[in-house]
């Protein structure tokens, strides 16, 4: 059976440290903008930590929530792409084909989670910062959209390893960079088609919810609510 990759994020463990944000930058060669571009809303973070205030001081609570591409089953970004640059792959990922993208930004406009980013300019790195680039991930040119891929390069690598050793991919073997880095182990990644996988079990637990579920996009990222 094909894989169906999904993620569970335990908000009871998460404390908003943003280790995932840095890990994503390192793994996926995200461009760093500058203050002028950042002020125009052009900074790129495939994963961000949203914060919500509830109540008034002193009875106030802050909630942090890591938000990345929700890899929706009924992804609103997909049907609006005129050139099929964003499509649904057989393992359930919303994949962005950079060299098909013509930069209409319709997908970003249609994404309810604001997790798609447009490269307004050719990304630049001041030498020798480019030495840190991960050779497994393409640098996106100017004029194309980009977003979280669930670290598809890591998924493919594990699948190749498993194939070479003639065995199935083990649960927990695939770890996107954010999941790998999380100090509180708040993030779990795995195959939703495997009912025994950790992510499947967490996704069907009583604490699991999905972000903006009422929109019907059927995200594959499950948030486990904070306990009492």
């Amino acid at each position, binding site marked *: 059976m094909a894989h169906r990759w999904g993620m569970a994020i335990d908000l009871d463990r998460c404390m908003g440290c943003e280790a995932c944000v840095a890990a994503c930058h390192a793994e996926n060669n995200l461009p760093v903008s500058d203050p002028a571009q950042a002020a125009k809303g052009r900074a790129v973070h495939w994963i961000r930590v*949203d914060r919500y205030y509830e109540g008034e001081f002193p009875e106030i609570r*802050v909630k942090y929530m890591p938000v990345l591409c929700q890899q929706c089953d009924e992804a609103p970004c997909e049907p609006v792409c005129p050139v099929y640059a964003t499509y649904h792959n057989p393992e359930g990922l919303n994949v962005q084909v950079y060299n098909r993208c013509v930069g209409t930004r319709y997908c970003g406009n249609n994404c309810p989670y604001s997790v798609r980013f447009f490269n307004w300019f050719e990304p630049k790195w001041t030498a020798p910062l*480019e*030495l840190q680039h991960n050779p497994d991930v393409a640098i996106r040119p100017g004029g194309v959209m980009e977003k979280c891929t669930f670290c598809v390069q890591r998924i493919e690598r594990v699948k190749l390893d498993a194939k070479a050793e003639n065995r199935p991919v083990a649960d927990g073997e695939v770890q996107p960079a954010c999941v790998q880095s999380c100090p509180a182990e708040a993030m779990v990644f795995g195959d939703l088609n495997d009912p025994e996988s950790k992510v499947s079990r967490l996704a069907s637990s009583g604490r699991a919810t999905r972000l903006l579920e009422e929109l019907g996009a059927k995200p594959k990222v499950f948030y486990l609510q904070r306990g009492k």
Partner: protein
Amino acid sequence: MDRRNFFKIVSTASTGVLTGACGKKLDRYVPLLVAEREIVPGEEVWRPAACGECGAGCGVIVRVMEAERVVERQGDPVRERIATIKKIEGNPLDPVSGGRLCARGQAALQGLYNPDRLRGPLRRVGPKGKAEFAPTSWAEAIAVAAEKLEHVRAKDPSRILFLTGPQAGTRALTIARFLEALGAPPAVTFEISDFPIERKAADLVFGWKGLPVYDLANARYVLGVGADFLGGWASPVFYARQFGHFRQGRADLRGRLTQAESRMSITAQAADLWIPLPPGTEVLFTAAIAHLLLREKLARGPNGVPQQVVQAFEAFDVTRAVRACGVEERRLLRLARELGESERPLVMAGASVVQTNSLESVITAHYLNLLLGNVGKPGGVLPPAPEPIGGRPGFANALALLERTQFVFLDGANPAYTWPASTGVAQKLERVETLVSFAPFLDDSGAYADLLLPDHHMLEATAAIVPAVAPVAAVTLATQFVEPLYETRATEQVLTELAKKMELTFEPATPKNVLASALTEGQTWEEAVRQGGVWAAAGGVEAEQPKPRKTGTRRGEGPTAPALELSAPSFFGDTSQFPYYFHPYPSLQFGDGRAANLPWMQELPDPVSSAMWGLPVEIDPQNAARLGIRTGDLVRVESAHGRLEAPAYVHPAAIPGVISMAIGDGHRHFGRYASNRGANPLSILAPVWEKSTGALALGATRVRITRLASGRLIQFSVSDREQGPWGYR
């Protein structure tokens, strides 16, 4: 890379075969230094290393791959293949990081490949403080330094001062040996990241040398007081890992955290309940809990507490705490009951923002732990693991020392940034006859240097470091495996050459020779190199049940056990002129400011305000409305000792009357990403110290705040993203 795979690699490597994670086998032993001819394009090699970004000393593993760089040779650009580091992850074998790593640790890569790194030795050509330098050769630089050092040594070696960072290990040992050979006083650390208050309190109450280990993972009810242990405190990755387990790692058991702190820190927001305490009232709050615990007969170990302390707790007037802390008595009572009735209660105390009475507050919290009977027990306060190699630099207020010094070495310390301007640090550094900086970057203090002798980056170095907090005796080991990018030189080597020139008997401490004694039975040096450290028992903290250890307390020993003092904090600045408390705090992304030159950290949205490329002043909505301040407005914060200007962030969870600001910005010199960006909150502090340790009292200054103009705060996510200044991304 997970624990299992890394184990596979290190264990097969010992037989001479290294398994790459992409499934191909490399039939060769990976040499210590990855030479150009050894690099296989597209092939990755994972090597253990040490993180030097803060004192936590996490063990890491790095992904080494081939890359190409262009260098100039005889005027022509030449392409050169080099081994480069692509990513840093936690070392799964390391008991501190356990395979995980914080944002700052991962961004260390950008220190290594930072375009502003010093590429070789420099000598000052302009006036001091103006940062005008010209390249020089290592031979010349060392000759000059040796001559000046010899001059001072011959007259009075006590006029030599070595200021270092807080990290213990081979570097600190080498420096200690060098100074001993010179006949100079030992090196001093005077950084806010050394946690002198926490160290001193543990020593006074328990007789422990080092930071106590809080067994958060196995506790059931935790009361945090003043320690932002998930943020920029002693060992963020270690405690974050434990926190995950504390919350959801045990079947049918969820740990509850109540955090009492004078700021909504990231620990406070992760807590189930936040008790906002006015600055400096932690000690009264803790004493009230202790009083109520005794009154309710919930104290389990009153015999472990010196009699005079129990009496002081019993005599404590709770209404004093109720008034000062603004917390109702029934609420305090509920907390005391929750603590006292919990099967495994724990009080995690510290001083993220030091006040003049912080030592008393941490001491009181330790007594509270003794009352709860959790010291040395699982889920309680555990003694620090013994440090297998010595050399932790001593903490001292170096201000007076600097006054009478002629020759200053700087390594891992940046006094021109971290000491308040009111101490006259700039003038003092200017007055120093010779100043030598080993920093890999030109920083605020380096601008006053006569010689910049750049050290290798930590990822290019060979070093053994001792983590600040570790569950077992631990040494993190880094051995050089990529060629240094530039003409930098290890400080150990520079000191050796200096000693040679001066004909001193001196030998630097190398990881190999200092670790010889720390290796346990059956362990070899080669194995330690492959694993990236030596640990008394390798394993995650969650995995093992810590055994109850001897507490080693000095209880009942009369004079050594400190009496309970419950003094009020002092604040500097006239209340009528300066009505607000100022609260600069070490931030998650910049720590004490030393990560501000990493572009990833500049663009990392601040966990509080989501600010990028410039940290804001945090003010509560009530006072902001009164003063007409809105988020993004440019405000001026003034103390009796200086002023700063920065954008405001109206923080819904700020305590009214407490103006907070993260430390990190406002460097005058620190490369293109940090220089002249934002404001340095430390610069306007009053020169006030916690009297017993000499630690800078970060929170003891009063300020006033005024709106100047509308300004700009760059935020990544604003509260209502759709209504932001842009329509969509």
